[in-house]
């Protein structure tokens, strides 16, 4: 059993401590917006925030995440509406298949928290998620839109 705080809510989950956080989120907490892409922290589709920092949840265990604030794509919006990154994604019509975009958006949201006006080089350094559809041009534009929102 493990207590995980996901999107401000405490989940008491029947899950082993060495289970990757990704699978606890998807299968035990039932939040499927966080995606499985590779399982080895290469692709970033499973990116969530752990105490506000972007992490690849397939590479973090449940025990490592206990006691921390976990935010998933489902928890990014607030009562005031969508997060500005989500808004920018809508405005710029970013997703193609969309499967990588939860992770992409979470990575970008964390970047903008630390670096509200990232340069293109900052974006290149921080955003390393794989998108096979090739939305990178729209992603970059949308990051700047969100940064200026």
């Amino acid at each position, binding site marked *: 059993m493990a207590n995980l705080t996901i999107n401000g809510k405490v989940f008491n989950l029947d899950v*082993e401590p060495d*289970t*990757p956080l990704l*699978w606890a989120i*998807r*299968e*035990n907490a*039932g*939040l*499927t*917006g*966080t*995606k*499985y*892409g*590779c*399982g*080895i922290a*290469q*692709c970033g*589709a499973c990116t969530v925030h752990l105490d506000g920092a972007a992490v690849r949840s397939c590479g973090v265990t449940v025990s490592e995440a206990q006691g921390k604030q976990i935010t*998933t*794509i*489902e928890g*990014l*919006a607030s009562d005031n509406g*969508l997060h500005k990154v*989500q808004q920018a*994604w*809508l405005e710029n*019509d*970013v*997703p*193609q*298949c*969309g*499967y*990588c*975009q*939860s992770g992409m*958006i979470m990575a970008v949201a964390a970047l903008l928290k630390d670096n509200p006006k990232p340069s293109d080089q900052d*974006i*290149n*350094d921080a*955003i*390393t*998620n*794989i*998108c*096979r*559809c*090739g*939305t*990178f*041009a*729209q*992603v*970059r534009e949308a990051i700047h839109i969100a940064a200026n929102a």
Partner: protein
Amino acid sequence: MNQHVTPRLNRRSFVIGTAALGGGLAVGLDIPFGGPQVVRAADGSPEVNAWVVIRPDDTVVIRIARSEMGQGSLTGLAQLVAEELACDWSKVTTEYPTPGQNVARKRVWGDFSTGGSRGIRSSQDYVRKGGAAARMMLIQAAADEWKVPAAECTAANSVITHKASGKTTTYGKVAEAAAKLSPPADVKLKDPKDWTLIGKGVKRLDTADKVTGAMVYGADIKLPNMLNAAIKDCPVTGGKLKSFDEAKIAGMKGVKKVVTVDGTAVAVVADTWWHAKTALDALPIVWDEGPNAKVSSESIGKWLAEGLESGPAFVGNENGDAKAALAGAVKKVEAVYNYPYQNHATMEPMNATALYTADRCEVWCGTQNGEAAFAAVLEASGLPADKCEVHKLILGGGFGRRGQTDYVRQAVKIAKEMPGTPIKLLWSREEDMTHGRYHPITQCKLTGGFDADNNLTALHMRISGQSILFSLRPDALVNGKDPATFQGLAPSGEATIGYSVPNLLIEHAMRNPHINPGFWRGVNVNQNAIYLECFMDELANAIGQDPLEFRRKLMSKNPKHLAVLNAVAEKIGWGTPAPEGVYRGLAQLHGYGSYVAGAAEISVIDGTKIKVHRIVASTDPGYVVNPAQVERQIAGSFVYGLSALFYGGCTVKDGRIEQTNFDSYNSMRIAEMPKVESIMIPSGGFWGGVGEPTIGVAAPAVLNAFFAATGKRIRSVPLRDQNITFA
């Protein structure tokens, strides 16, 4: 915000799915309703026809038969229907009819297959007619009510107006009556010059759920009492399962059952997928690797190389006498190129969820071919069509991979072992990487000959290697030969060669290694464009001519090919000085009915690091339905094409694919993404595809620029294997 409603419908239908006959739609039962028969959607709203349902609140539900995998054709197809329907675009939503319903209704929605960049071009005529017929019926219904001639009524923005009387009504108010009318016999489509919605870069209809995590992909399905399965198939194609030691995983948490599939694979079923995967990894498995266990990239390469020199070959394009002309040539140029196996690597690994009972089998999955998936369910379940159904979901990438149904079949076979329990089969990335349907492997020997005046008098291309059709569509072979291998090189059709050479011979020596080939975004255009377009540069260089001028001279009989090439040359500034240290390359091709060209600007650091600064890509697809989406397809095609050029190689050792994940099979990141400038020059009169053709020019444009920068000609993909990477 309009939303694609399919996931919601499906989520709802999970609950009723086992008891009811289908998902969200009517299933072809014509329900008597006080007179003529009206077919109803699940919520009771009337179908005006198979493509259009209109709800009382004026919501327009447009049925989309093709699959959405990111390419945007769900939105484009809706635009085509809505253009003729003259409805309010802000009230449009979409849904998928199911393959089972299509069968039950005598294929009223036509072909579901979504590949070959055909989504729009192969259905544009009948879906526009569907929209137009619905509009005519809605107008007729209003006219009948008003007792005026329909010809005096007009429709726009979902409002019908009778000008003389000043009467107006909305589609939602007359849909019920319209649904009872007979469809018009004669449906006239708008002249393209009158289009107002087609050609407009409206936003996609399926975005909202993709930014909140709410979109349900196949991997996200939840059904009551569902269990999860992880699978390992024999790593060597042609091998089989010998034994496994189930006792070793007995008692592991969550494990419910271990099942074999078709004698080649073993799957663990557990409460969660993580438990299933963990147990499967702990399960000792012994494979009988079969006759292919010693095959390697080296042995395949050697076999293909033999095909370049000897043995029978299938002629795909021939004029004059190339061999004689080459024998008499004053100058000859010869080169050998090769192209590797590549995995599609969709971001969402293969998966399908199946629920089997003694008299029914339902599957939920992402598929590029709903009808093929349906056929796979029938075959694997042993049940007839009226007892099977496939619920299509939005795909987490397709690129050709999800046109195959191997994962659907496996899910049904596993579910059959546990009747009444829904089973979600999800492949690990490792399973996905090692059991792909790979871009086929080929080599090509090219020989060109010049006369004393530096005229290209002969060109001989001999391709040796794998046929996709041999493996996947043997019915499409011609006397055992594969005409599709000449994609982009053909004398006629939708993928023709753009050059006129007086003596031309293009032939294919088929060599089919055991690795399963598949249709991979761009398909045979990818290697053929590298072979031909890089070699055209080699030929130009051999006689000291500019690559653009050299091509132009050979393209006078192919003005559409030439137009797109000229467009990129002009925009990239060909013939004018490039920025310091920047070099340019060109390529063009005709594929999927569209004419495309690409120009690249790159710089090379230390001979091994390439910075792609800028790509200019032009396309003439005849018509552009949604320029915003076409632009994204073009930019995305360069991500796919350049990922393939730099990183995309699957090698074979001991009969199996060596690459297992993104650490050994990399893909481009945002830092490596060049600026892509697209030029759309739709010339009208034909319908070409846009998802694939521009992929083919990505690699040769960059390779030609690399030669311009370094004087070194690269004839082998991927660059990874030559220690060349992105700067």
